[in-house]
């Protein structure tokens, strides 16, 4: 197992290098505007743009620029400075990362709990009114765009512009102090972010559980006289939930790169917002930094999920 983990970590490092190179190339090969021209203001002379390009290091060859970037990153953990406001990218990112982690973690707890619960109920009461109702609701939740759902929730439930003033509105997370206060401001964003995922997990678990409950060993468990609850949870769900865990890990990893839409509609300063703004402004260094964070999160979550597999499924060995 240790050797496997080490191998995966080394592959992760290589993956991150490849990703920085690809991001670099995309930024320069595809038309995205010239950061130097953008900083030069109105009616700049070619000499002014050239001088700015030189000060930003943009006049060096692409390999030289890339090498400079990697050197700073590896030796000093320095992600460079934002082309837009000259702030250190590391500060910008790590200032926002806890917000994204809090948002995603809370939502993950909700969507996993809700998804598993709904999936079990639906599978166990297959064909009943509750099954149809819950699966119909899941379809709606999957179909509803996150941004739209967020706006609907704000217009219905936020305490400033909502019809029923229940939950803190957009921007309230920034003003909250203390964990509980911040958590209260995240109730709506958590629910909005969790909705589609819960629905997907519910449907996934339902279909897996239905399949599992038809297996021979389930029939055997019943034949042995085990209580139905025990049969379902100890034997059925345990087996059916494995793919759900895999997806959970990957989803959390991807969202750690930023739940852009949720962060935007609720004005939460997370990694997603940062990367969106950076893309809009052609801020390469910030785009690279946030892309690395995303890649790292996905790689790590995928590794964790694979390790958990070994504990969930005794047949899996590394």
């Amino acid at each position: 197992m240790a050797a496997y983990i080490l191998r995966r970590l080394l592959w992760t490092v290589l993956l991150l290098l490849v990703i920085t190179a690809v991001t670099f190339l995309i930024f320069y090969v595809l038309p995205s505007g010239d950061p130097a021209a953008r900083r030069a203001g109105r009616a700049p002379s070619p000499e002014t743009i050239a001088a700015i390009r030189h000060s930003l290091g943009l006049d060096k060859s692409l390999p030289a620029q890339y090498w400079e970037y990697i050197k700073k990153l590896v030796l000093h953990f320095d992600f460079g400075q934002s082309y837009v406001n000259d702030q250190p990218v590391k500060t910008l990112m790590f200032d926002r990362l806890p917000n994204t982690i809090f948002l995603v973690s809370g939502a993950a707890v909700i969507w996993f709990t809700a998804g598993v619960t709904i999936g079990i109920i639906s599978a166990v009461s297959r064909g009943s009114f509750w099954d149809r109702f819950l699966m119909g609701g899941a379809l709606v939740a999957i179909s509803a765009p996150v941004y739209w759902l967020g706006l609907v929730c704000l217009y219905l439930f936020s305490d400033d512009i909502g019809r029923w003033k229940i939950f803190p509105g957009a921007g309230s997370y920034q003003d909250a102090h203390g964990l509980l206060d911040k958590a209260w401001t995240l109730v709506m964003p958590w629910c909005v972010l969790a909705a589609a995922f819960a629905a997907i997990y519910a449907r996934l678990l339902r279909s897996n559980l239905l399949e599992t409950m038809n297996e021979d060993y389930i029939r055997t468990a019943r034949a042995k006289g085990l209580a139905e609850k025990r049969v379902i949870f100890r034997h059925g769900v345990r087996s059916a939930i494995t793919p759900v865990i895999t997806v959970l890990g990957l989803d959390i990893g991807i969202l750690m790169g930023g739940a852009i839409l949720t962060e935007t509609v609720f004005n939460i300063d997370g990694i997603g917002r940062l990367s969106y703004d950076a893309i809009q402004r052609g801020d390469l260094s910030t785009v690279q930094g946030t892309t690395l964070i995303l890649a790292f999160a996905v790689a790590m979550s995928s590794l964790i999920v694979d390790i958990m597999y070994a504990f969930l499924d005794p047949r899996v060995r590394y």
Partner: protein
Amino acid sequence: MHRSHLRFLLVSMLAVLALVVAACGGDDNDSSSSSGGSTTAKKSDAAAPGGTDNTKAAEVEGKKGGSITMLAGSDVDFLDPGRSYFTQGYMVIYPTQRTLYSFKPQDSAKPVPDLAEGEPEISADKKTITVKIRKGVKFSPPVDREVTSKDIKYSFDRFFSENVGGQYPGYFSSIEGAPATPTKGVKDISGITTPDDNTLVIKLKEAAAVPVAAALVMPVTAPVPEEYAKKFDAKNPSTYNTHLVATGPYMVKNDASGNAVGYKAGKSIALVRNPNWDASTDYRPAYLDSVNIRTNASDANVASKQVLDGQSMMFDANPPANIVKDLATKIKDQYTQIPSGGYRYFPINTTIKPFDNVDVRRAVLAAFDRNAARLARGGKFTADLPTHFLPPDFPGFEQAGGYEGPGYDFLSTKNEKGDMTIAANYMKKAGFPSGKYTGNEEFLMVSANVDPNKAQSEVAKAQFEKLGFKIRLRLVPQDAVYNDWCQVPKKKVAVCGGAGWFKDFADPQSMLEPVFAGYTIPKSGLNNNMAQLRDDKVDAAMKKAALLDGDERLQAWADIDKMITNDAPAIPFVWDKTTLIRSNNVNGVANGYYTAWDFAWTSLK
């Protein structure tokens, strides 16, 4: 399917539909589809009913104290007065810094002395400007001393360095010693001298004192203390942006060593009172105690509603078109509208046949439905339809004909939806007897791939096609539109899908010369004269007018505006208005110079 199941399904679908309709609320696109009819009033035809008179609001004796929250969709570019060049930055800079000259909210055309004691003295040969600096103005903590002329000189010196990278060096390039390219490190600009602590002398290479004096309203003239700032300016880029000091009534909250702790990039900016500000030296009332600017309010609809429904809040930019319509028709008293001080236009490349023929260009203008282009940007409550180029409330506007304009038949208040008869006549004059273009070639139009520019360029394409032109519309990222296409003559863009030119200071030369003077077209580099207009008469008139001052100057530039309009090198399609909204309990005052709320004049009711 059983009947009961079918009924259940139908009921569910109806419930979902009801939910969708309820959630979507009112008609968000109404303002885009309503034409509102055509009014040919002598005043602005886009004046939304209701709204606060900004001049009256500025004259209200406000209540001292209180705090405002400003919701902003994006961060400032920079807080450093030597670097900032956008409205957001100016909105923070002007209440916190004292420039040599600035504008009262009541008059965005005439600057008043601020840090300067009086009007600039211009020598007879127009090559020297002398400014007396006001006494008693102090820097905020931790500098805590009186401002001298050397601080303004240092501002200029650092502005020209690559460490700071001032974004409008062209306005001051005529200063003796001003470098052609940014200097490595902060270097002395020989043309700026300080014979004593309260006198600043600017020597110029040419007789350009009038426009340079007009440019002394810009943030670069805010003083920067060298002994404090030089360690930050030694870095490249300078870090003064997060260690700045203030001279205005407010300052960005900082700690004892000057770190701007109140500035959280991309999140918020906290403004507090500058303890060293002396009200007796300043014309600003500064009623508020503090301002909290949230720079992450990304959804404009939500933010607008929060402001309108909440208390002590303001929004930094134009609300969405649906909100503007509600303001004009329902809410009525929580907004102020001011001219944005610029024009938006579609440049027509005068070097590409047949657009090198002035009658063809006039035909295009005559046929053009400018109201449709305005709709693409939000409709009649968001902008006026131009009849020339100098915008409303700008020096020279009235002399150029005001809202009615010079009265050319191809660009008047009478044909805002286009007049095909007039257009056909011009085409016939140009040698197209059918009244339309009969050639087969495709003309390239380049525009941004996002709205509203995308929408407005699609309108423009349709207008050209009405006259028989075949247009190939190429959509590219916003940043590439000018830098890679429209400002690059060799790309042969026939029509740029929308450009804008907005004032940097209140002088008509800065609004017309960079955009339409033939002699500004560079041999290489980016070209602001996207139409590539080369009219010897216009150029000669500009060179002559540059040397004039006072009313004579305004009249001369107004006449140039008429000449340019007559040349039809571009289709001006909107004079933007900026709509600013506030909560009910706020007496909001806007500054027409940087077209944003002015914290130094705003108060709570």
